[in-house]
């Protein structure tokens, strides 16, 4: 499990998640992403799920938590490259009501 975070000159931060997202790893991912947000205050946070091999509902908590952070900063959140099974868990939580899924 690791997250690779880059921010472009346009204020778009991309956090590329890798490995398995569960309750154990979500705690570390949350810390890493929050630290990066506090450092560079992006206008848009993009969470990239392409390299995620497993996710349970802890991933939903991770997304909802980052949504709250970005709302506080008056920024936006979007989710990209969701494998089908991750999309299914996200839709169970009706996350598409609050977050753009590409």
């Amino acid at each position: 499990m690791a997250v690779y975070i880059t921010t472009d000159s346009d204020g778009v931060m991309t956090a590329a998640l890798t490995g398995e997202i569960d309750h154990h790893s979500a705690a570390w991912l949350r810390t890493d992403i929050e630290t990066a947000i506090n450092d560079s205050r992006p206008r848009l946070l993009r969470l990239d799920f392409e390299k995620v091999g497993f996710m349970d509902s802890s991933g939903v908590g991770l997304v909802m938590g980052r949504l709250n952070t970005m709302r506080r900063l008056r920024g936006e959140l979007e989710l990209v490259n969701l494998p089908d099974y991750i999309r299914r868990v996200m839709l169970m939580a009706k996350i598409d009501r609050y977050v753009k899924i590409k």
Partner: protein
Amino acid sequence: MPRPKLSPINELSATLPSLSVNEKLARSLVSSFVSLFDPRLDELNDIKTSVSEAVTNCIVHAYRDSVGPIELTIRAYGSGVIYIKIKDKGCGIADIRQAMEPMYTSLPGEERSGLGFSVMESLCDSVEVKSRPGAGTTVVLRKRIKSRMEYAH
């Protein structure tokens, strides 16, 4: 005539301490066991996800302020049914119906989505929960793996 009790064709039992690193270990054990029966990837993933939810509940809720044993029992039956029991001796659940409601969590503010039981119910054929405050919780998941032969027809 009473039906004879079906015996499993394979069985695995393990007891893990309720440490969050063991969420992954529980998934690996179940995954290795179920893989012997040639499941489709989505079936395997459904089972892994459900076990992950149940084991996480033991760690986050049952043994909230302590570390205790999580007993995992996995059985495979000739019919293709996979039976998984996740048992703890933790705090127990006072209101099971409320605990199983989608989006309900007893721990708001900890980024828990409250979807654990909903995910299990959606991905398995059946979910049984037995619990009593102070006496722990037992969750039994069942899911039938369709054999490759069935898809061929």
